[in-house]
């Protein structure tokens, strides 16, 4: 657990035992849809800005992630994706 931010890819991610949620920081436009559609409220708006001045989401509550991928499917900016990392 805990957030890992990778500067080289401008990626913020976090994982629980089964899923990892990734946010491509520079693609985000802060529309808020991912935060809104997440049924378990995994994502939280960051207080940091990306290079275009948008506050991107962070998977702050990753423990609650159920891997439904609604955030990924509903992100208009190809900025969020979910990986299955364990069974």
């Amino acid at each position, binding site marked *: 657990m805990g957030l890992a931010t990778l500067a080289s890819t401008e990626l913020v991610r976090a994982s629980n035992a089964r899923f990892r949620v990734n946010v*491509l920081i520079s693609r985000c436009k802060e529309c808020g*849809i991912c935060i809104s559609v997440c049924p378990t409220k995994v994502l939280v708006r960051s207080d940091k800005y990306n290079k275009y001045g948008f506050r991107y989401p962070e998977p702050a509550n990753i423990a609650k992630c159920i891997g439904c991928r609604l955030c*990924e499917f509903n992100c208009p900016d190809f900025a969020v*994706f979910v990986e299955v990392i364990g069974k």
Partner: protein
Amino acid sequence: MVVGSVYERGAHPLDKYLRVTRLPHIWCPGCGLGIALGGILRAIDRRISEGMLKKENVVFVTGIGCSARTSFYANFDAAHTLHGRAIAFATGAKLAKPELDVIVIGGDGDIAGIGGNHLIHAARRNMDLIVIMITNFVYAMTGGQVAPTTPQGIYTTTTPHGNPEFPLNVIKLVSSLNPNYVARASVTHPPLVEQFMYRALGMKGFRFVEILSTCPEVFGRHVGLRDSVTLYNTLRSKVVVKHNPGVEESEPDWEKGLVAGEFLVRDRPGYLEMLRRR
């Protein structure tokens, strides 16, 4: 327990189908176009991984408008052509090289407004094309003018006292012709976009999919739903997903709801097959 990434570090699963160096795209925050494109690309990915589709045969053809910019980002052969003329261009490409899988994407203004006549005749011919019309109810790229799909009474920059016109039900129009497939999805239900696109990719003849979408900056502003999430949730609350709805249920009704589903599924010979039979 196996722990490991199924993806390369930092790569979105759709990156292989995107011209990633052109991202972030030009669409406004909260614009549904990216969601629609995501659904379309996932369907293509499924067909490719099943061996039903070759990546090099996929061609994205678009006209002009926000939706037309999908051809900027899809990492396939692509054409960003003239306003309203994507179906015409696509018709020529398909007839000249039948092995291509030609996908036309446009907005409601592009496909049903200026390009309406091409839509009618391509559907009449059962031309072997997939046409995706992404409806945002307004001319967005030009700044918010009335569109053929704008609901009656709505304020736009060219209907400052409310739209006096009755909107066009494109589902009904296309269904009255000779298409093999007519469906309506919504960006508020991305799996539907993927499902209908997947279905369309496996068929012949004219396939029409309308995708209802959100335009917070322009349409949202006009109707007082400027906030992306509010507009998204409002549209979602209006969409009624039905199994095999009848065409008569397709009339957009903002009070009773906007019916999504597969209105028409047929297996008539496509235009190319009719040409070969001569």
